[in-house]
Every structure is written in structure tokens, then in C-alpha cells.
């Protein structure tokens, strides 16, 4: 039996709509479930006081600070390297053997499970370079982990900038560097920032790579060289060892809120910048 084009159109529409709704529903369910379980745990005391009794009681302040320090370290290292590499690939070189190698390496690195990065970080940063379990070891390991994403998304964003912008800029007497900074970068910024944001999310949520490189101490980190426990690791240990499901859900809820907040704030800032430059 043949289906009339009109009926076919309708069926496809319903199927596509159903797919989107299903995905939405799953997402909303997960977020709602965790917030419902964890939100009531979160108050100022939970945010501001240090964990006590292995995390059974007290708050999670040290893990919040630890998370922020590790993530900032990772992004501060990976963003300039990754964006620089992307500009090199997109603007300063033509397709050749070297660019293929760089791109192939980046793609391979992106596919490696994070626990392998953790193992590498443990062997190289923690032991060989004797950085011990520390914010720095964890940050460097995460930087390696997110580097491929930063390179890939930045390169796509740079390539998406219309070629004519570069020609116009050159024709007005700009040097290559001036063209990149004034004509290409502002247009690519949104895409680049999206890649960085994605990476920030992955850093905040990462467990395996951090537990092996930053440790799991509950003490407040005081420098790049202090060991620390991030929120995701805290959540993992609380749940895994049955210490306190209550506080585990509280931590998870806060993780979700934190990622949400970072996205909102970053997008607002980018919008403001883009609006100014348009």
C-alpha cells in the first residue's frame, strides 16, 4: 500500500515531534528528580561550611572551592593553547601533512576515556613531575582532556567566518594579525565561547580523571599545590561508599545549578560583547 504524500508528511511530523519530546522529557525528568531530592539540602550553611565526619554532616564549601580552582586552572591553560592551535590550523597554514597530524591527534585524544587521562596525569604530573595530588595536577590533566574540544569547536567557528571579511580587512590595509583580531575573532567569538563553555561543563562534572590527580582530601585548598576534592568526586564518594545519600543529592543539585548559572552568565556576557561589536 502506498501512503499519500500528505499522510506521509503528517506521519513524519509526528515522529520528529515525538523524538524531540521524548528527549526533552528525559532531560527534564533527570533534572527535576535530582533537584527534588537535593534542593532542600542546599542552604547557606551547606554552601559555606566545610564537610565534617567524612561528609556525613557539615557542608561542601571546600569541594566548591576545589572544583572552581581545578576548572579555572584547566581552562586558563587549555583555552589559549586550544584557540591558538585553532587559529594556526585555520589561518596560518594550508592543508598539509602537519595539519592532518594535528587534527588526527586532536580527534583521537577526544575519543579517549577520561580515566585514561587520569592515569596519565597520575603517572606524569603527580609522580614523574612530583606535583603530588594537587589542584595543578588535576587542572593540567583536565586541560589535556578538553584541549581537543576547544581546538575543534574554535576551528569550526573560525572557518565559519565569511572569507570576504578577511578580504575586506586586507583590502583596507590590515595586516594578517589585525585582520584576525579585528575582523575574524569577534565573529568567531560566539562559537569559540560555546566550545569553552562545553569544556567548563566537562571539567566541573569530571570524576575519574580528577580523583587520580587532585586527590580526595576534604581540606580547604589554599594554593595550586594543595590536594583537593571536587564536587563531582565528593558526590561519587558519598554515594559509592554510602556515606550520605542526602548530601550526595545536595551536591548533585548544586552541580546542576552551577553549570546552569555559568551558562547563563557566560551567554549574557558574550551577547553584550557581540552586540557591541556588531
Amino acid at each position, binding site marked *: 500500500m502506498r501512503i499519500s504524500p500528505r499522510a506521509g508528511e503528517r506521519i513524519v511530523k509526528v515522529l520528529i515531534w515525538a523524538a524531540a519530546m521524548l528527549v526533552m522529557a528525559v532531560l527534564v525528568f533527570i533534572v527535576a528528580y535530582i533537584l527534588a531530592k537535593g534542593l532542600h539540602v542546599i542552604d547557606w550553611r551547606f554552601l559555606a561550611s566545610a564537610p565534617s565526619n567524612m561528609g556525613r554532616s557539615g557542608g561542601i564549601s571546600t569541594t566548591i572551592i576545589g572544583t572552581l580552582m581545578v576548572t579555572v586552572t584547566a581552562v586558563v591553560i587549555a583555552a589559549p593553547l586550544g584557540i591558538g592551535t585553532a587559529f594556526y590550523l585555520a589561518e596560518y597554514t*594550508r592543508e598539509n601533512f602537519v595539519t592532518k597530524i594535528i587534527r588526527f591527534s586532536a580527534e583521537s585524544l577526544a575519543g579517549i576515556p577520561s580515566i585514561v587521562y587520569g592515569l596519565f596525569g597520575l603517572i606524569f604530573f603527580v609522580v614523574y613531575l612530583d606535583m603530588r595530588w594537587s589542584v595543578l595536577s588535576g587542572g593540567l590533566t583536565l586541560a589535556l582532556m578538553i584541549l581537543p574540544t576547544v581546538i575543534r569547536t574554535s576551528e569550526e567557528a573560525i572557518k565559519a567566518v565569511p572569507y570576504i571579511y578577511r578580504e575586506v580587512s586586507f583590502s583596507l590595509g*590590515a595586516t594578517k594579525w589585525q585582520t584576525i583580531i579585528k575582523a575574524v575573532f569577534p565573529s568567531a567569538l560566539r562559537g569559540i565561547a560555546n566550545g569553552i563553555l562545553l569544556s567548563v561543563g566537562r571539567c566541573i562534572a569530571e570524576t575519574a580523571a580528577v580523583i587520580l590527580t587532585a586527590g580526595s582530601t576534604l581540606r580547604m585548598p589554599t594554593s595550586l599545590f594543595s590536594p583537593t576534592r571536587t564536587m563531582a568526586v565528593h558526590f561519587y564518594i558519598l554515594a559509592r561508599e554510602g556515606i550520605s545519600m542526602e548530601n550526595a543529592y545536595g551536591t548533585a543539585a548544586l552541580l546542576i545549578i552551577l553549570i546552569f548559572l555559568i551558562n547563563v552568565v557566560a551567554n549574557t556576557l558574550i551577547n553584550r560583547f557581540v552586540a557591541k561589536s*556588531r
Partner: protein
Amino acid sequence: MSPQPKFVIKNLSFYYGGKRAIHDLSLDIAANEILSVIGPANSGVTTLLRALNRLGDLVPGARMEGEILMDGKSVYDPDVSVTELRRKIGMVFEVPTPLPMSIFDNVAYGPRLIGKANGKSVAESVERVLRKAALWDDVKDRLKTPAMSLSGGQQQRLCFARVLALDPEVVLLDRPCSGLDPISTAKIEESLSQLKEQYTIVVAPHNVQQAARISDRVAFMLTGSLIEENRNVEIFSRPKDQRTSDYVTGRFG
């Protein structure tokens, strides 16, 4: 013709990889004239314009032979600064190409590249060139708004103003009116005829009629070769070459 031509092009050939876009072309361009370079698609007109300001260099695999002298000095001379050369030779592109920034910032783009501050002088020169491009009255109250919000014709006049802000000696226009309405086209043509006192203008018109309206001299190119160049009237009333005659009367192209 003035004593020394602005450009002397000698035996120019231009290649993209193995493909030859211009073949052994020689042409003088006088200062303060409007020269139209006409020809059907793929005649090498755009390539010729882009060879003058060395924008053709940007294409991977591009290669040229022969010589282009500006004021007696080769534009490909090793000690010529390309950025300085391009400031002297402004270019307006076929499609309006405002950069994604405000109207003011678009016009100030060139001057700011050489470190002219954001002070009063830049504001003054922005106003001056916008007036020259017949755009000032349209935009004077919204200089800070995005250039993309202008109409196509306004955008092209903005691009024209942006080039004038460089204070160039030569202005190249590559089919600057091809997507524009007749009123915007008329405004641009009018500015051109006023501006030749100050600049040397090389234009690739988007049709033969425009060449007839605006130019002092016309050069006709076909498949990379210069077929004929002469004063406006001569080309249109007494073309020497049959192909020129066929093209300007609309028999092909």
C-alpha cells in the same frame, strides 16, 4: 592624458595554479581618470583589479608575470609594504561587505589600523567621507547601529565611504552596483564623477551602459586578453575590433 600615468601595466599574465586568467596584458591608467574595464564573465576583469592592489596574492597558487608600476615603481617590489599599498589603492567589492560592527566602526576601520585615535579627528573624517559617499543624511543619527541593518544600497555606499576614509590615491570598484536599485546606483555614479578630481578610479561596471555613462576611457577584455582600449566615445561609436563592437552592441556577453 597627464604626463605620467598612474599605473603602467606591462605584459601582465596572471595564473591561478595552472589556469591562466590574464594573458600578456599591457595597459596604462592615467591619473584622475575613470577607466572602465568591461568584459563578459571570466574575462579576467576582477583578476586585473585584484592584481593592482595585490589582493590576488591571497589566493593559494596565484602567480603573476610581467610588471605593474604605480607612479613608476613596481607594486611587487620587495621593499613595497603591501599594507601601505592597499591603503593607497582602496577597493569596493561586488557584494556590499560591511563588517559585523557599527556604521561608525566600519568607516573608522582603516584609519584605526594605522593608530589614528578615536578622537575628534576620526569623527570628523568619518562625517566627511560619509558625505562624499552620499550617505551622511541617511545615517547621521544612527552611527552606532550595526552596519548590517542598512539596506543593500546604503551598505555599498558605506563600503565606498570606508574606502575613502583611507585617503587613497586610487579607488577600484568591482561591479559595485550589480545588486543595487537604480537610485543607489545613480548616487554612486554621481559620487564617482565628482571624485575623479581627487582619485584615479578603475571600475568594472556591471553592464555596458554603465561604462558608457561614467567612464573617460574604456578597456575591453575577453578571456584574459585586452582586446581594445580607447576613449569612451571611440569604443562605443567607432570600435576598432569586431569583438568589441559585438560586445558593446549586446550581440554577446
